[in-house]
């Protein structure tokens, strides 16, 4: 019995010593709470954070919240108890963070938000936000579109004087949908070619393929030969819509110009097949920027409140070239 106890104690000690020595070898300890793994995009995001932590020689305490805010709050509380150097997290919802962030502030641990927005009563509760900029994504969509129309001298199919746009919106109220819609609208209004376009219809497709397909089906039934351009708030809805367009005997990317946001593998395949025109990237590879910013904060340097990752625009003529390098 005694022998067993000694053995257990010894092994615990050994494990502890090992963990301490690895912790010693790393520069910084950062706690990170991820939402979960709801999509390919999120998985890419998680993997990138882990890989970047290794590159930066950071002792990363990673916690998966499995889609629950309470799990995230618990994780953050644990990070505070463990006295990590910095806490990062992807807020699953926008509200309800005041208390836990105040606890972190009292413990003098800086907090860095990634990817999603949050609203707190006091902005100083977090240092900065790393993420994608859905407003700019919407703007980029319009700018690409306007360029494309100019270059290819696109004419309305119904012979009228305006190009008709239909829009598949994302989930109502989500920050991505609102941002992309505003960005697109503002760019359209500010454009010198604003009289060239007419928004024919705009309905939500809930960011899913099925809804995108059904709503597009209905658009085509109502307007058919009037539709010149489709702007989908994400790639999945565009992929669903492409099938409706084909089922109606129209040619996607030729009869109807298709542009969407995200840059998932499926849309690249569609572009290679000549069924979509362009996608504006929504970049999940935010790990590098996250740890760079974290290091700056810990060194006492000032960082802007919002730090955005770089996001490209990919067009069908480059799709085949870029495809093999895509990580998500």
């Amino acid at each position, binding site marked *: 019995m005694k022998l067993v106890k000694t053995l257990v104690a010894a092994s615990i000690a050994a494990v502890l010593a090992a963990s301490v020595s690895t912790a010693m070898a790393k520069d910084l300890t950062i706690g990170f709470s991820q939402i979960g*793994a*709801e*999509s*390919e995009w999120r*998985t890419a995001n998680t993997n990138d954070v882990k890989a970047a932590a290794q590159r930066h020689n950071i002792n990363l305490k990673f916690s998966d919240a499995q889609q629950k805010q309470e799990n995230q709050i618990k994780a953050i509380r644990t990070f505070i108890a463990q006295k990590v150097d910095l806490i990062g997290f992807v807020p699953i919802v926008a509200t309800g963070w005041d208390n836990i962030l105040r606890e972190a502030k009292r413990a003098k641990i800086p907090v860095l938000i990634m990817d999603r927005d949050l609203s707190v009563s006091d902005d100083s509760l977090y240092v900065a936000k790393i993420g994608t900029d859905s407003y700019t994504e919407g703007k980029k969509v319009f700018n690409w579109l306007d360029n494309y129309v100019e270059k290819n001298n696109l004419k309305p199919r119904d012979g009228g004087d305006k190009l008709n746009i239909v829009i598949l*919106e994302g*989930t*109502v109220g989500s920050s991505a949908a609102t941002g992309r819609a505003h960005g697109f609208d503002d760019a359209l209004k500010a454009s010198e070619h604003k009289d060239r376009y007419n928004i024919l*219809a705009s*309905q*939500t*497709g*809930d960011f*899913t*393929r*099925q*809804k995108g*397909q*059904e*709503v597009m*089906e*209905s658009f085509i*039934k*109502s307007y058919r030969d009037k539709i010149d351009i489709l702007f989908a708030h994400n790639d*999945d809805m565009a*992929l*669903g819509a492409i*099938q409706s367009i084909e*089922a*109606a*005997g129209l040619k996607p990317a030729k009869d109807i110009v298709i542009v969407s946001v995200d840059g998932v593998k*499926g849309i690249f*395949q569609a572009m290679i097949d000549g069924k979509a025109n362009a996608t504006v990237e929504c970049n999940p590879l935010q790990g590098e920027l996250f740890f760079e910013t974290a290091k700056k904060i810990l060194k006492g340097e000032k960082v802007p409140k919002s730090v955005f990752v770089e996001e490209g625009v990919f067009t069908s003529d480059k799709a085949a070239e870029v495809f093999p390098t895509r990580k998500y």
Partner: protein
Amino acid sequence: MDMLKKLSHSSLALPLAALALLLLFNALFVDDFFKIEVMENGNLYGRPIDILYRASSLIILALGMTFVIATGGVDISVGAVCAISAASCCVMLGGDISGIPEHPFVLAILCGIGAGVLAGIWNGTLVAKFKIQAMVATLILLTAGRGIAQLLTDGQIITVYYKPFSYIGGNIPGIPLPTALLIALCMVSLVIWLDRKTSLGLMIQSVGINQTASKYAGINVTLVLFCVYIFSGFCAGTAGLIEGSFIRAADANNCGLNMEMDAILAVTLGGTLMIGGKYYIGGTIIGAITIQTLTTTMYAVGVSSDRLPAVKAVVILLIIVIQSEKFKQMYRNYRLKQGSSAAKEAEHA
């Protein structure tokens, strides 16, 4: 003649009237609603075709649900089972871009339907053998089902590039009617045949009305219940294949989402009562078509899809209230009163 008699049956009259009303609304307010075109490749195209082929997976689900509800139970797991079925079929085919399937197509289809049947066996065992309340027993797969589908697909949306897979939700080249509609027709014929030519229908009704009495009458109640849930699983498996094929992908989060509710609605709209007993296959089919017509109408008039459930709820509330015994009685009393006051007036005059 027999069919006509059944159609004029009071419990079918209401759902038919509801459907007619919806179609009338469409005829008045939506341009070209009833226009059906023949496309270059010979396929039929138009909103009525859309309604029928989008309704087909719901019809299939609702057929299975009708039997389950007739036994006094309910199967709320069918939407999640759809997701499992679509996931297993797509995983078998694989997401290879070249369009070459990893396993033969037939095997993948069997896998999808098999997953549905397995789910049915699970539900059936819990309900028939262990006598767990149907709502609770099927709740397990409702919550776990999407998780299982996620596990199968590794949390990703698997897009299938293998062409024949898209035929299930689209058209087989050369056949003008959508395949999903043909599958639904086959299932309906199968069910009507079972209903008419075997004593299964009678047994199901009897179990739904009184289990103990049925047992004494020599009906194997456990077996009937078991079969009913397996059939519902089979229907869900088939519907899952169609739903997956619509988008040519397995979307574990959204495939068949909330379809169990639509299926239950279709059954109740059709006049089958939730307490079990008598059921109406024809009513169920019309109920399912009504629900899809409502959805298509909302899209056509531009109500956005997130507000759709609210409109749906109002319409369904109306239909269900009109169908309720209490309302019918109130209506009868009202008629009687009117009749008597009219009679009195006649007397006075």
